[in-house]
């Protein structure tokens, strides 16, 4: 039983095909990553599934309800976390959750109880009385996510939830998303970052030009993309050419004195040890999204 179904969605804005035959099937209870660059159609897909826009063609359903003909039922089953933290900055965290709870139809007392519960889950109890404008980016985002969970939705849409956050805040938000999924909510997460999808999602759909161009588990996708790369920065005492020869095949950048190889970190360290080379720096480089696209679509951007 798939909680999210999209079949052949098409949406045009003038000459732009924002969705061009978009298909998606997501089973209940998983985190599904929708990975793609800016302008790939991620936000349009989320808005279509969350009943915010009508598509030109195709059909979609959420938790068994058709998004076009049963929009009110769909809205009782979803939470939408858009690209901006859509909370009232003047009000306090608790005030925000109580307001949204009452708008969801809860009584004052129920809304307050649910607000306090969610504030606890997301580590915001202490800041609950303060105006949201004093919150950090990560706190704001967690409050935003909490507001989407008031009715314990079947599906939570998260549209690029960590864009613009520093690494620490990003980790907080990632933990919150895992917490949401652990409580049984299906999560559709859009992201531009391969490592974010890798960290959170059990299945990934890669979207480009409004359609899904590849899909599978993170490991399967990474195998398609190619493995990790190791960048070795060579010190002055060692010869750049010598290191490159030992690690061949390798890409050499003479300006930064860096030798980059497609190999495991352990293998590289063993070779360096064997030839008694002590590098200035060793960096593990994941395939970038650009490389992923090159590998998955053969379409250089």
């Amino acid at each position: 039983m798939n909680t999210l179904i999209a079949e052949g969605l098409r949406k045009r804005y003038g000459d732009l095909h924002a969705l061009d035959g978009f298909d998606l099937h997501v089973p209940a209870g998983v985190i599904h990553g929708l990975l793609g660059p800016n302008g790939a159609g991620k936000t349009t897909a989320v808005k279509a599934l969350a009943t915010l826009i009508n598509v030109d063609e195709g059909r979609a359903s959420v938790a068994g309800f058709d998004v076009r003909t049963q929009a009110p039922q769909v809205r009782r089953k979803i939470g939408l976390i858009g690209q901006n933290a859509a909370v009232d900055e003047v009000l306090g965290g608790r005030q925000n959750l109580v307001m949204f709870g009452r708008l969801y139809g809860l009584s004052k007392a129920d809304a307050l109880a649910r607000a306090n519960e969610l504030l606890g889950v997301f580590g915001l109890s202490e800041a609950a009385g303060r105006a949201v404008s004093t919150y950090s980016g990560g706190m704001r985002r967690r409050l935003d996510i909490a507001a989407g969970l008031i009715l314990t939705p079947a599906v939570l849409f998260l549209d690029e939830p960590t864009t613009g956050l520093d690494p620490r805040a990003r980790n907080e938000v990632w933990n919150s998303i895992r917490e949401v999924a652990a409580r049984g909510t299906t999560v559709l997460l859009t992201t531009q970052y391969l490592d974010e999808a890798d960290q959170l999602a059990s299945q990934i759909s890669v979207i480009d030009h409004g359609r899904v161009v590849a899909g599978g588990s993170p490991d399967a996708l990474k195998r398609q993309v190619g493995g990790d790369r190791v960048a070795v920065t060579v010190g002055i005492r060692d010869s750049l050419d010598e290191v490159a020869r030992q690690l061949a095949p390798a890409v050499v950048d003479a300006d930064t004195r860096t030798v980059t190889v497609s190999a495991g970190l352990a293998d590289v360290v063993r070779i360096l040890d064997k030839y008694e080379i002590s590098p200035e720096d060793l960096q593990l480089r994941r395939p970038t999204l650009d490389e992923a696209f090159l590998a998955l679509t053969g379409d250089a951007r």
Partner: protein
Amino acid sequence: MTTLRAGWILTQRELAHWAREPWGPVFGILFSIMLLLVFGFLFGGAINLPGGGGYIDYLLPGMLALSMMFGVETTATAMANDARKGITDRFRSMPMGSASVAFGRVGADMTNSAFELLVLIVGGLLIGWRITSDPASAALAVLLLLLLRFSVLWIGIFVGLSFRGEGATSAVQVLVWPIGFLSTAIVSAETMPDWLGAIAAWNPLSATATAARQLFGNPTGVTGGVLADGAVWLALAWPLVLTAVFVPLSARAYRKLRA
């Protein structure tokens, strides 16, 4: 029913804003009081009214009408801010009636404006303005002022929903000035060149300002023409026409968010 309830919850949101940040509305009211003092005492001495009468008595109902019309900015800005921050989209993804957002705006802005009206009336009485009519007429004047606010509220909702950029709200903020001044709110239309005076007399703001003057028993600066006899009727008709035009336009703009 649920739509009205949601509208009331969103009105309470606005009241909570005041409690948290009272300076926004306070500065809005101080601005109106400053305009009142500038026109009443700085410029007022140089203004002679056709038909006679003291300028403060003439000015005050005009300032009340002007502040109701300026409310269109507040509405448009609040709508555009919610849209830009994604709050409107969050509301739209929630199970509440499609009119809830507009109802909330109406509740919040009408409360705000009623309070502003009260402060300006008290301020006016303190600087020498007098109501010389009966309480029923004065109450009708207040209702007509609030009716004007209600009608421009829908213009604000339409603008805020249709144009999401900050440019649109800036345009509204600039445009209210010529529209406000090209009326009988501050000076009598009869002191203007004929063609300009004719435009000013047909400004909806002039109808409300003149009707309020008649109903408060203040000098009107009107000695003839359409405003002399029909101001109260025009002050009723103009807002109803504006509302009848902009409620459907706002509803259409809201539906078009799904396009």
